[in-house]
């Protein structure tokens, strides 16, 4: 279980996150929903250890992870632009996080699992947008991270593809009982993918709860506005 306690992040003396609290239970998918510039991506980066927090704690299963370097946290992060390694094949990308090298059965399995069996030897340049997205997902999930974070996982794709992939990705995550945070600025996407929502605006968590709870009881005017 992930517990984020009073997390604040300042970048260039500008407060990006202001005492954010958020819990994610085991096997739970939390959708972090907010307009652009609200601090969503920074939140993921701070949890991943890519941005140092100014104050607050990041705790996993009761263990303080705040000072732990990124590569030892075992928190997977799928980047908005996918960040696929251009000098490696699909298989090398997917196999990067596995302890074993290329030819690892895990790679083939992960590719099968996202529906890209046989794509292993392709170069990144040969892939379409949807294929890249799925390679990125496979790469994130392959090393079996304790926590999966997805930053606008479908953001870069066109509408048709997005609608199809929303359910596909959600099913994949659910099928592995993954603990996950999904960041998006799209309300429908957030609702479709997550068990629970967290609304974020200007560095503050405004409200957490299920879609229905929020609809019934928006915390304030902004929340009511944003949800409709």
């Amino acid at each position, binding site marked *: 279980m992930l517990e984020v306690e009073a997390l604040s992040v300042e970048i260039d003396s500008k407060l990006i996150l202001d005492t954010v609290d958020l819990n994610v239970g085991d096997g739970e998918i939390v959708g972090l929903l907010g307009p652009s510039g609200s601090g969503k991506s920074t939140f993921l980066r701070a949890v991943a250890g890519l941005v140092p927090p100014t104050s607050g704690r990041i705790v996993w299963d009761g263990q303080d992870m705040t000072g732990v370097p990124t590569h*030892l946290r075992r928190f997977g*992060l799928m980047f908005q632009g996918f960040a696929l390694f251009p000098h490696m094949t699909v298989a090398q990308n997917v196999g990067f996080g596995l302890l074993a090298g290329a030819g690892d059965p895990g790679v083939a399995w992960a590719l099968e699992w996202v529906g890209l069996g046989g794509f292993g030897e392709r170069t990144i340049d040969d892939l379409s947008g949807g294929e890249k997205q799925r390679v990125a997902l496979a790469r994130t999930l392959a090393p079996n991270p304790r926590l999966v974070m997805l930053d606008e996982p479908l953001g870069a794709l066109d509408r048709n593809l997005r609608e199809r992939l929303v359910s596909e990705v959600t099913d994949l995550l659910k099928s592995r009982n993954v603990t996950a945070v999904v960041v998006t600025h799209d309300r429908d996407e957030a609702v479709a993918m997550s068990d629970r929502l967290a609304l974020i605006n200007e560095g503050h968590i405004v409200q957490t709860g299920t879609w229905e709870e929020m609809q019934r009881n928006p915390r304030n005017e902004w929340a009511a506005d944003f949800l409709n």
Partner: protein
Amino acid sequence: MVIGDGGVSRQIRWAWVALAAIPTVFLGYFFVYPLVRILILGLSEIQIGASGLQARLIKVGWFTLWQAGLSTVLTFLVAAPMTWAVSRFNFTGRRLAVALITVPFVLPTVVVGTAFVALGWRDSLGAILAAHVFFNIAVVVRTVGSQWRRIDPDLLNAAATLGATPLQILRKVTLPLLKPALAAAASIVFLFTFTSFGVVLVLGGFQYATLEVEIYRQAIVLFDLPLAAALAIVQLVGVSVALMLYARYQERHSATWDLASDASIPNPAGKALVGVYTIVGATVIAQFIPLGTLFARSLGSYGDLFAGDTILGGPLPAIRNSLLTAIAAASIAVVIGLIAAKIVTARAGMLSMTFDTILMLPLGTSAVAIGLGFIIALDWPFDLRASLLLTPIAHALVAIPFVVRVVLPTMRSIDPELADSAATLGASPWKVWRRIELPLISRALLVATGFSLAISLGEFGATSFIARPNTATIPTLIFRFLQRPGPQSFGMAMALAMILALITAGIVLWLDSLEAGDIGAF
């Protein structure tokens, strides 16, 4: 995995500090510290106001200044027609002509000097000026030409329809648009000729000396180290002032015009065609006269050269020294330059800023000052002045700024999310470096290695201070052959210069085949 209280984090921080310490200690001890010793020694001499200093300064300083000015003007005059032809017209062989014109620029200065001696132009001002023009034409053609090409002909046509004469168009449209490029080219040529060493030492006889040559004479011939140090300070101040003036000019005139990225340049026809080919042909042929003469006159001397000289022996030890030195220097320069570039690109604020500046310093410092600094300063804490690694280290100092300039842009162009995503996949900083960053900059690294090799092979300024008779490099051996009288020694100098020219050309061609972009524009 059980993690304590951020112990790993602290370890990583220490690793960074340790990493930063490598280039810091290297540059601190081999660059900053010798400069400080030069300052201390030279300033005491300046304070005493030694009579010799004043006399030398007036004579040598003035000569250095005006010959640099005159060389710059002459270079522009000679390069102007060629620059016009290759900028304003598209024609078959244009690229080849620009490539050929660049050849002299990549040649070691000792080779250039020897080529002009081969023409029989020794010990004269004319030889120095001609060699400076020969060496620097490429700077003007390439720097000004690339800008000139981007001026859309319709811009000039528009001016013509408004009633401007060709001269008015040149004065009111073309020149203002070329001003930044003209200023850049002029500063570079001035700087190169102001700090000219090899060419002047070889061609100047004993009556013409730039500050660099005088520093060498005072230090190595007369062994007046304080006077040499004082002159080195004057030289450093002169170069810094020139660089600062240029930087201020750039700041004030940094307006960038929206020029065509690839303007529709016409093909010449009729008279223009003849004119263009005449200009380009004449310039290229003139450029190759010294080299051709060197080649032709060297032909009879390869036998002598490899038979070995009674005093200096054969060329093989020097060739071996040069190659080993180049390899060692390139290794040092690439490793130090790479670490430094890594630190500059890391998000480390202050540290990276400081590094960025310090790294570029050797660029503005003359190689002669580096050599002088070594022999003045490196007797402490251990006497390293006889160490065999001294020459490679000096060459590495000269090459490091170039390595950084080649590697840094590529490193900066790498999406930082690639490293971030590798980290979230469990890759340690070391693994991120090995598996992601290093492969992505491998081509830039090869180019930097080639650059360093070429720089080291031709380096003469610093080497002339620190190479010993038993550790001569190709350039210092050429110079010793040149210093000795007799046609046989001179023939061997030409043959060896030809060999060095070929080795250098080979490396530059190899670099070009890597499609390293516009490496000729340094």
